[in-house]
Structures are given as structure tokens and as C-alpha cells.
């Protein structure tokens, strides 16, 4: 049984869903059955932000050990700021605003890649240094930026069909599309090939540099877009709105069953892990614990999940 599950790769992400369901059940029990569906709906809605940034982070991590994007939080904040000022509260400017946020992310991603390529430094360092600059830009740009998001954007983030947020349905379509990209396109296959063995990939004719550039750009573009969407959801820009996405993006990827060693990607796991993280906070809130205990338990649970899911195989 276990062997068969492992072969089909389900075991990698089942964990996250089991965790999410478990946490949800405890929350429902704590609330004595009240608001079970509302909690789930809220979770499905909020998970979208986690899934979007984590999708980018997952592609980055899948390209091999040492690949990680630390500039996501700063890019989220900057994307939100740019989108809000382009939209300027007008419904007609929503699409240009979203495009501007994506364009901002694309610039950040290309800058990240340029640093990695020209300075030959580990991606962690490259994205860390660029995040310093992006963060500064976001603070400078966003200071005093108290623009309300356009009505339509705000209502879109809360719109529902049969208790399922529309945003969630759209994001599910996006996840499906990314699954096709990952499994069926040259780009997606290149990502996994590079992650497994960059040398072999290069010898097999994979355009390694182009693939890495697309990957870092994709990650930052998604972060920028998420920022715009999140600003619509939370009613505007705040200077540290991106900070929660550093842990979230990495934790969702890893809890979702993607190996930090690279060469593997697990899209279904992202949803389970994102739901798990959100519902975990909801559960701790429902249990009435303070913010200190909540953070403490979140940290312990993340470490416990990582430990239980097991590390990488030895060797290599």
C-alpha cells in the first residue's frame, strides 16, 4: 500500500490534506459545530494568496538545491503599491493595475536572475540583496499611499458561487494550467530536468539559463500579482503586508511535498498546505490563545510536519 502510494506520488501531498482536514475538524469542534462551512470558505479564499506565491516559489525550488526566492515578500509589497496607484480606486483601471503589478514583478525577477548570472552568486544571496532594494523601493513608494482598492476588485475577492470563492475557482484553473505547463511543456520539463541534474540537462540540450530566467521571473511576477490581489482583499497597502509571505511561500511548498533538493514539484500539495497553514491559525484563534502561543505552536507544527514527512535521502 505504502509502496504503491509512494510510486504514484500521492503520499507526498496526502500529508498536507490530512493535516488541513484534521485542523479544520478541531476548529469545528472548538466552535461546537458553528461556522464549519464559513471557516472552510474563508480558508479556500485566503489559501489563494498562499498558493499563488508558493507556485512561483515551487518552480524556483524545483530547479535544484540552493534555489530559493527570498525577494517574494518585498515584491508582494511593491506589486501592491504599484497596482493601487495605477488603479487609483477606479474600476476601469483594474486590469492595467494588475498588469502593472505583474510587470513590476517581471522586472524584479529579471533583476534577480541578472544578479545570479552575472555575479555567479547563490540565488539565496542574489534574491536577498535584491529584496533589500525592492523593500526600500516599496517603502519609499508606498509611504503615505492610502489609496483604497477599486470597488470591483474588492468585491471580486469576496465574491462566491455556492460558498466557494470565485477567486478560488480562478486559482484552481490557474493551478491546472500550471500542471500542464509543468508536465507537458518543454519549459516545465526543463525545470525538473535541471533540478535533477543540471549538468545532464545541459548536455541533453536544455537551455538552462533561459529556463532559470523564466523561473525567477515567474516567481516574482506571481508575487507582484498576489500583492495587487491581496491589497484588494485587505483594503489597501501596508508597508509590511508582504512579510508573512516569506514563511508562507517556503512552508507551503515544503509541507506540500516538494523536495528542497529540487527536481520535483507538487502542485496539488500546495492547496493542502495552504489550507493547513490558514486553518491552523484559525484553529489557534478559535482556541483563544494569544499571538505569542499562536506563533510558537505554528513554528512547532511546521517543524513537526517537516520532521514527520522526513528529510531527503542520504547520498549524492
Amino acid at each position: 500500500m505504502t509502496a504503491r502510494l509512494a510510486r504514484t506520488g500521492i503520499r507526498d501531498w496526502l500529508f498536507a490534506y490530512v493535516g488541513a482536514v484534521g485542523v479544520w475538524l478541531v476548529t469545528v469542534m472548538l466552535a461546537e459545530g458553528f461556522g464549519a462551512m464559513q471557516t472552510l470558505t474563508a480558508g479556500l479564499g485566503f489559501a489563494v494568496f498562499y498558493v499563488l506565491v508558493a507556485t512561483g516559489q515551487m518552480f524556483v525550488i524545483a530547479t535544484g538545491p540552493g534555489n530559493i526566492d527570498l525577494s517574494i515578500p518585498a515584491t508582494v509589497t511593491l506589486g501592491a503599491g504599484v497596482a493601487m496607484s495605477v488603479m487609483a480606486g477606479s474600476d476601469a483601471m483594474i486590469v492595467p493595475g494588475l498588469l502593472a503589478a505583474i510587470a513590476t514583478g517581471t522586472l524584479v525577477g529579471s533583476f534577480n536572475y541578472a544578479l545570479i548570472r552575472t555575479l555567479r552568486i547563490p540565488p539565496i544571496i542574489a534574491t536577498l540583496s535584491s529584496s533589500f532594494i525592492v523593500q526600500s523601493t516599496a517603502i519609499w513608494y508606498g509611504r503615505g499611499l492610502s489609496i483604497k482598492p477599486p470597488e470591483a476588485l474588492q468585491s471580486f475577492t469576496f465574491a462566491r458561487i455556492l460558498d466557494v470563492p470565485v477567486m478560488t475557482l480562478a486559482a484552481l484553473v490557474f493551478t491546472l494550467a500550471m500542471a500542464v505547463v509543468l508536465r507537458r511543456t518543454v519549459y516545465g520539463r526543463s525545470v525538473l530536468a535541471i533540478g535533477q541534474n543540471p549538468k545532464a540537462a545541459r548536455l541533453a540540450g536544455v537551455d538552462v539559463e533561459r529556463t532559470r530566467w523564466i523561473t525567477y521571473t515567474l516567481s516574482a511576477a506571481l508575487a507582484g500579482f498576489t500583492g495587487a490581489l491581496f491589497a484588494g482583499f485587505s483594503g489597501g497597502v501596508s508597508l509590511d503586508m508582504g512579510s508573512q509571505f516569506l514563511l508562507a511561500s517556503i512552508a507551503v511548498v515544503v509541507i506540500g511535498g516538494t523536495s528542497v533538493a529540487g527536481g520535483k514539484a507538487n502542485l496539488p500539495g500546495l492547496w493542502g498546505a495552504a489550507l493547513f497553514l490558514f486553518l491552523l491559525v484559525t484553529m489557534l484563534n478559535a482556541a483563544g490563545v494569544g499571538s505569542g502561543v499562536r506563533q510558537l505552536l505554528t513554528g512547532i507544527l511546521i517543524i513537526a510536519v517537516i520532521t514527520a514527512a522526513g528529510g531527503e535521502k542520504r547520498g549524492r
Partner: protein
Amino acid sequence: MTIDWRELVRASLPALALAALLAAIFWLQPRAMSYQGLNLLLNLSIPIVFATLAQMFVLTVGDLDLGIGGFVTFVACVTVTWLAEAPLVGVLVLLAAIGLYAAVGALIELRNLPAIVVTLGMSFVWFGLAVIVLPSPGGRTSEWLIAAVRLRPPGIPLAILAAVVIGVLGHLLLMRTSFGVVLRGAGGNPRAITRAGWSMLQIRMTLYALAGLMGVMAGLTLAGITTSADANIALRYTLLSIAGAILGGSQFTGGRVSPIGAVLGALVMTLAASFLAFLRLNPDWQIGVQGAILILVLALRALLDRVAGGASR
């Protein structure tokens, strides 16, 4: 033997960056070129130097510590509460915290876990504990600790003296003892070290414990300087310590680290923050300048490597 000078330039890059930054500050504000001026400029550097050393110890074995900022915050919060009110309890808690750091190292080694994720989880643990210990900003650092960081040794400001002592001690431990060779070797070639009969478990635990010790020193000195604390006090130390260590020449692989470089890197990061004040520029760009200086140093290093690589290979 012919490429020795390149290696020399490479190794002195952090020092050159520091010298350039100091020169610029002195040029903008000649009054900074005094005992009092340097004292003010570098006042905040002591905890950052310790935190950077902590990061460097973890980097030695090829890991990255994303939890050091939370840890320093926790230590600072304990310092202004328990350590001030019940010193014995405080000391025990801090020792237990160092023990927990070593235990995290053990967990990472035994289960072969990604250090980034575990330490990221630990950052939540430390920040959470910090909030539990000190729910609202305040507390009071013990007088002896405040007095200690306000010491005014004759001739050399405390921050510079501390940086020199820490750098030299770290250098002696890691670069000059056979034990240091083993520690660095564990980052370079763990298999060789294991074959030679050393336990990777013990090595990782030692390095993490050393990192914990440095983190405690960072928290103590930070609380001494600020005299009170809050649960966000060292939020930026995680990224700052990585930046400082990397600027100082540490690398992710091969156990290549440099304690003296890390100290210099931390000083550069501290000065970069106050540099803007001298230029009377918008403080929003503080972090940006730190990032730009980091990129500049890395670019110079890449340039040197390319020149050296072209000559020797």
C-alpha cells in the same frame, strides 16, 4: 605564487568596503572622526557583529539560519525581564536556549532536514516565546549590563575593541586550531570528515551551540544598548546577519567562512545604515543602501574571480 595578490585583494574586499564607507562618512562629517563620533557611529554594531558570527557558524556547515533574528529578540526579551528580576532563572533559560539551538542542529543532522525550513519554523518559535515573555514593549536591562556596553576604554571605542577581540577569537578558533579545521571540513567534505572518525552529529551540534552562544551575546548587548526591549527588536537581524557574513566572504558551500570578514561585514552593514543620515537622504532607502553595498562587493568579487579564473585556468 603569481596570483597571490588577487587572493589578497579578494580577502581584503570587506576591509576596503569598510574603509571606503568610513572615508565617505568622515568626509561628509569630519567631527565623526573622534572617539565620541566613532562611539556613536558604531554603537549598534556590537550585537550585529555577534549575530553575524552566529550566522557564520551555521554557514560553516553549509546551513542557513533564518531564525537568528527571532532568537536575538527572545534573548533580549529574557534579558530585560527574567535576567533582570531573577538572574539565576534568566541564566538557566538562556543556557536552555543555547541547548535548544544545539538540539535543532541535531534534529537537522539526524533527520537530514532542510535547515532553511527548520530554522524558519524556529524563528516563529522564538518570536512566539518573545511575545510570551514580554507581551508589551518595556522591561528594564540590569544596570551591570547597561554599564558594560557603556564602557569607555581609553583610546579605542568599545565597539571597535569588541569587534577586534571577537574577530581575533573567532579567527583563532576556526582558522588556527585543528578543531576549527574539522568544523570547516564538515562543510567542505562531510564524507571525508566522517571517514576520519568524526561525528557529523557532534560537529553540527557544536556549530549550532556556538551560533546559539553568539546569539545570546547579541541579545544581551542589544538589550544593554537599548535598556528595554520589545518583541520586534531584532526583526531585521536575520537578513542583516546573512548579508554581513556573505559580504565578509563566507560561502554556502565548502565550509568557506571568514570570522574576521564576518566582523567587517557586520560593521559595513551597520555603517551603511547610518551613512544615509550623513547624506541627509530619505531613511526609507536605508535597507536599499545595504543591499546596494552588498551587491557592489559581490560584483567586485565576481570580477576578481573572472580575472583570476582567466589567468589560471
